[in-house]
């Protein structure tokens, strides 16, 4: 039954869904990691910074809301791919790294620096933290893009 429905619907549909599922989960995971590790455990990030612009507050609110949706929605899409036996693990992992990298780069450049939401850590040489933060974001994007483009339909999990 599955082979037939696959032929009819065409796999391109689910190939995109693999990437999206990973991308959304990646965005959600990085946002969750940011909140859990940098806000709650290390206390490097601050809940509110007096120099935050109102655009920063709005952007933060929307990304915060979106990240919950992304985490939950990405995982439901993952479950959907599995029940259809359409999961391409490599593509999904690539999507995760892409999503995580894109969000981290946005957070590190636009939200931290342009909108001054809060700094990574309240220390003198914060530029060093920014550098590590953004370079790791770019690395995730590159590795994610490579993984996602190299993944083939044949890699589909049984």
């Amino acid at each position, binding site marked *: 039954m599955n082979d037939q429905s696959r032929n009819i619907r065409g796999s391109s549909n689910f190939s995109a869904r693999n990437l999206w599922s990973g991308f959304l989960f990646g965005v959600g995971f990085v946002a969750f990691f940011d909140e859990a590790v940098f806000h709650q455990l290390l206390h490097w990030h601050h809940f509110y910074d007096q120099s935050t612009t109102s655009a920063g507050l*709005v952007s933060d609110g*929307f990304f*915060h809301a979106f990240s919950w*949706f992304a985490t939950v*929605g990405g995982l439901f899409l993952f479950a*959907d791919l599995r029940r259809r036996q359409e999961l391409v693990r490599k593509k999904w992992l690539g999507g995760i790294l892409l999503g995580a990298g894109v969000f981290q780069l946005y957070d590190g450049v636009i939200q931290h620096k342009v909108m001054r939401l809060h700094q990574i850590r309240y220390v003198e040489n914060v530029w060093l933290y920014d550098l590590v933060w953004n370079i790791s974001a770019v690395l995730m994007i590159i590795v994610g893009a490579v993984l996602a483009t190299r993944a083939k339909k044949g890699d589909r999990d049984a």
Partner: protein
Amino acid sequence: MLPVQKRVIEMHNEHHMQMTLSASPWLAVPFIIVLSLYVWAAFRSRRRKAWPASRTALWIAGVLCSLAAVMGPVAQKAHTDFVAHMTVHLLLGMLAPLFLALAAPMTLFLRTLPVQQARLLSRLLQSRPLLFITNPAAALVLNIGGLWLLYTTSLYTLMQENVLAHVFVHLHVFLAGYVFTASILCIDPAPFRRRFRFRAAVLLLALAGHSILSKFLYAHPPAGVSSIQAEAGSMLMYYGGDAVDLVLVIFLCSQWFHAARPRKAARPTTTLS
């Protein structure tokens, strides 16, 4: 502090106490009525087909959350303490509505009432004003817009001083919260069941509006609230709101997961070879 000032403050506090005593029984009454109605309906409905006990339990939990918000120690403290006020807000406007909406009250009433009355109820649900406010977008504005009004205008002070304003704000917070939650979850039958994407977009806006307002309150406390209380209260609002909204997101996505399941029977063309 001058003795006169002290006396004025004491009088002020006494005034608060009296007001709380006079306002809370009235706010508790509707909740006790709907609790009895639901339990009666669930009991009566047993004759035909048992009404799930889990739904009744959800309804009871929702009523208990509401009662904890309008009477008892937390409600008393909420008059002078912003953190307690925020606890009331979360219980009455978010957690109680979630439990109550999951209890599917309209489904229960429609199947328990005699046909004539059930028709009347369903006509009422389809009346213009109700159709308007049960649209998720309108419910969003009533819900989150109402909160912005409450905390950024003098309404917050008025609510602490005037019994009528107090009752009105609490009823609004509860009703707006319930209508919003029910319009997102769509567990009860609705004349228009909105598309998943639309409901997801509205819930996203609500979540964003709620978290922006909480961070805004961190830096801009309502009149009469100290910055220490505002900081603690706004963080409770931010993370507490997150917890309830996360449950809503999970329910909404699981509805999509169920609706999007692959179906064999619905695809007669699968004989293609």
